[in-house]
């Protein structure tokens, strides 16, 4: 949905474009953790996530004059983050050396929605992390965007320049692939 609106973000953007860098600092504070979390869940690496995060905000600042406030600022920001991540991913794809155990140990214990339905396969958490990481770029991106911020299909569609219906279908497809790979573990 295209909306014409002037929200707080648009005011801050306008201030930055008039030379007020403090307003940019406010935008960084507001979105840095969300973007960082998104990149971390894509890279599984805190170091890479911090490097990419910095590059994202520098690119946002340098291109801020191109931002059109008929779009949500957050979706514009995530689109830039995704583009920066893509460039980074293309360069480092073959050099990734992920410590999945470290990723797993950093997680809180209570990740499951309904403890009543918990199936005791915690020893397979590591495999699930690996399967998620092994998904194709498109499938992984769409799953992370779906759950990271509670984005609606419409907002994800804005970020990826797809239709909301197309996004819904791709989310379902990505989940089916995840399920298929999980079952292929065999002894699980």
């Amino acid at each position, binding site marked *: 949905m295209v909306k014409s609106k002037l929200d707080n973000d648009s005011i801050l953007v306008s201030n930055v474009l008039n030379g007020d860098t403090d307003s940019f600092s406010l935008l960084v504070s507001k979105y840095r953790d969300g973007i960082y979390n998104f990149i971390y869940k894509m890279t599984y690496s805190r170091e890479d996530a911090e490097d990419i995060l910095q590059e994202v905000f*520098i690119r946002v*600042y340098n291109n801020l*004059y191109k931002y059109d406030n008929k779009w949500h600022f957050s979706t514009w920001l995530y689109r830039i983050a995704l583009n920066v991540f893509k460039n980074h991913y293309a360069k480092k794809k073959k050099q990734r050396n992920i410590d999945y155990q470290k990723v797993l140990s950093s997680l809180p214990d209570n*990740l*499951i929605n309904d403890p009543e339905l918990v199936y005791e396969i915690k020893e397979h958490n590591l495999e699930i992390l690996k399967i998620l990481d092994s998904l194709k770029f498109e499938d992984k991106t769409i799953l992370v965007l779906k759950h990271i911020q509670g984005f609606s299909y419409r907002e994800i569609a804005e970020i990826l320049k797809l239709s909301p219906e197309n996004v819904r279908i791709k989310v379902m497809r990505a989940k089916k692939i995840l399920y298929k790979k999980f079952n292929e573990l065999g002894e699980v």
Partner: protein
Amino acid sequence: MVHRCNIEDLIGYLDGKMSPDAENAMKEHIKRCENCKKAYYLFSFSEGFIKSPCFAGNSVDKNIMASIDKSRYKNKKTSLSIALQYHRLKPVLKLTAAVFVLYLLLFSVIVYKSTLKPPYNDKIAVSSSSPEEPINTNTPNATENNIESISIDDLRKNPHFPADEYEFKELTVPVNTDKLTALSSAKTMVGDKSYKDAKKITAILVSLTNKKHPYIAGSSIVLKDYPVWIVTFYNLHLTTQGGPKNAYGVQEAKVVIADTNVFIDANTGEELQSISYSVFSQSDAIKKVLELHSHSGFPDSPGKVSGILHAGGKAPGLSIPAEFETKVEKESDWAYTVTLTQYWNAKDLRGPNSKGPVLFYYWKYRATVDNVVEIDSGGDNTPLIMK
């Protein structure tokens, strides 16, 4: 309620998109079914992992602020400032360029005509429209006859105006703009072509509050109990956003059938916002039901077709002739009840010489723009419900 190990049902359950009854039945099923328990754990853990918070280091803000060029938007004489002004003025510049080209064309035609000698000049005057005339003389004028009525309840039921964002109230104070003026302003916004192509047009005067995005770009207006005309153009053929490629390098651009709502300031007659969304058709509803619930054999439009029902048994299983029927009832522009029924003859299950009645099983769904909910199912037992 019949429950099977269906991955889409499970995903729907995790997304909270089931009716309370279906949700309870699904939960009981998961408790009993080891496969679904495993799948539940997989999706629940994956979602929990993605959602789990993690925070950037404290030095990140400082590093970012130290890395940006703080003078970038301060010096008004830089080339960037010119680029910024260009981006801000882009719509105006485009309009100016279009007007300039139009005048150039007009001027060329006048000069060309003046260089011709009679009788050619007369012939041209007779056989073509005069350049001084309006370019499109077929455009209908906006009249109140073109507008249909709509109630506030209709707006409230529209899922594209969710209650947690939009609030519509009856307007109790007089306003300066009448329906015709609002329609003219909205027509200017959507253009003559959309105005002519619209299947129907409605207009309603309301007091509008936008709880999430109350501010209007470029003005001090706050959408809180604000008097607006909402003029809606139905079934327009709109092209979706083209331009930059998407994240996967593919340029998305296609024509969709959509409704466009134009919000007009009821006192000044100026356009405030416009919101377009794809139309949810009967065909969309059926497709959504068939896709989401993996039904096969049923027609994707209302009607009945013949097919084969796989009735279970030892491999390769028994296959019997059956009929598959799709029925649709429209509740509103955004909600349909879709009923899928399969019919088979009991004799086909018992052998060629036996007789039996025609049996059936049906599923009834309510499909809306956002989701599909199974509201009923039942009928005769069959060895395997084909889903």
